[in-house]
């Protein structure tokens, strides 16, 4: 499997990751090696088989849509990297 530098940078962008120059070479090499291995999945005789979407056969689990209040705002906000007036603070989005 040949992955180009451009492809890797495109994927990194989709993943919201910046890659340093030395990381690019390293990840290119790893990705190629891993994807070549991952192609073994094509040797599996899967013609006509459905896709498994979960490890058990429970396709849907229904429950009542009930609101449960979570009041411990302090516990939530103590993890905020930046907060003000009891709210999460981020840089200005609209110029």
């Amino acid at each position, binding site marked *: 499997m040949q992955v180009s530098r451009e492809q890797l940078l495109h994927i*990194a962008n989709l993943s*919201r990751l910046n890659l340093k120059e030395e990381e690019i070479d390293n990840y290119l090499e790893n*990705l190629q090696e*891993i994807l070549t291995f991952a192609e073994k999945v094509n040797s599996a005789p899967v013609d006509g*088989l459905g896709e498994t979407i979960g490890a058990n056969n429970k396709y849907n689990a229904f429950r009542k849509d009930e609101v449960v209040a*979570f009041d411990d705002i302090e516990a939530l906000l103590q993890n905020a*990297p930046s907060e003000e007036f009891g709210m*999460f603070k*981020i840089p200005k989005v609209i110029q």
Partner: protein
Amino acid sequence: MNITELTVHELQEKIASKELTVSEIVKAYSDRIDEKEKDINAFVTILTDDAIAKAKKIDEKINNGQAISGFEGIPIGIKDNMCTKGIKTTCSSKMLENFVAPYDATVIENLNKEGLISLGKLNMDEFAMGSSTENSAIKKTRNPWNLNTVPGGSSGGSAAAVAANMVPWALGSDTGGSIRQPASLCGVVGLKPTYGLVSRYGLVAYASSLDQIGPITKDVYDNAMLLNLITGHDPKDSTSMDLPKPDYTKALKNDVKGLKIAVPKEFFAEGLNPEVKAKLEEAMDKYRSLGAIVEEVSLDISEYSLATYYIISCAEASSNLGRFDGIRYGYRSENGETLRDIYFNSRSEGFGPEVKRRIILGTYVLSSGYYDAYYKKAQQARTLITNEFDKVFKDYDVILAPTSPTVAFEFNSKSSPLEMYLADIYTVPVNVAGLPGISIPCGVDKSGMPVGMQLIGNKFQEETILNAAYTYEQATNFRANFKPEFKK
């Protein structure tokens, strides 16, 4: 009496007979952690001061003649990817280095209800991605049997702490072998339950369709007891099953007469260390002598199941880890001006190299043009793997296999990520098919390092594999014959 060498069922007897107080037990563990942590590095957060205070309260209750429940005052260690209210949950990542969960995971709630006392949070590969705990951003955990080797992973802190008697038992999580493989490398007992048996609510997600929480213990009896404490339907995890809750200790009959054990020949082919193979063959003979029927079968899935596993787990990880954006919790980079800068820089600086590698791989296999070739194929292969296991379980009760191709390996000894992934070749098929699997020690190699045997059961047949493991353990008594030596 060396308190920290006792199993939990032995501790319970000593508390009940008033031979030991809860404070004496917790103090013994606190001292043991003080003594061994510098060598083992198992803990991310140590809670022994808090544990000593809790123990004192329970002893007061006992002294006042109040009844206590069977697990009140029993210490435990928790892998650091299970949310604990008011206590840091780091996933051994810079991303969550200061994250304090605002709620308890369901398994933690269950333990708290029973009155267990946490000794601390245990080290792991970052976000549970790895097979050696070398991917922890916090510290390198060492294997108590030989400090120059890894404890396995990703629940390496949990397995090493149990093996080193720094906790009597621990919770781990297993996505592709992360309970069984470190249990194997550290000479302890580790069980990955059937997918859906244990609630995942509050377990920081790596690959949601594969993750399960399970017990890591000194012996099989303890394992069954800890499983009893964590199973059950949870409305907060829609994949948890609503099934009757058996008492797993009742399944331990010390009898395998007539039990049909399948040995898949493909799991014993090239790539398996000959000494590991020899120990497993001895174990098969032991089972035969105990009256089990052990037969070779074909289960030709190991090669593509590893590929299937890495495609599915990385795809799910790339989606699950999208939540780490530096906004509401977790690491936020100080570099950059815009919201976009925060996303990119926080993720690039907060995640370690293996996590980034898996996010990239997962994003790739889900991306336009590659989805059908990789992800869709892997989902179909998953059906095939499940079907192949089903065929074996039509005729057999248990599958016997190696847990890991080798004993514990040295630090930095794997030359590439792919080589590390191959360490999981015998454990990942079990997660892909959602089956239960247990690893128990079955001897040591020439260098004195423990070898693990994996027993795989059909879905929700934990009782069958626990009994098979227990019967073998009673007949061989690994713990009486071998102990970690903290070799330097």
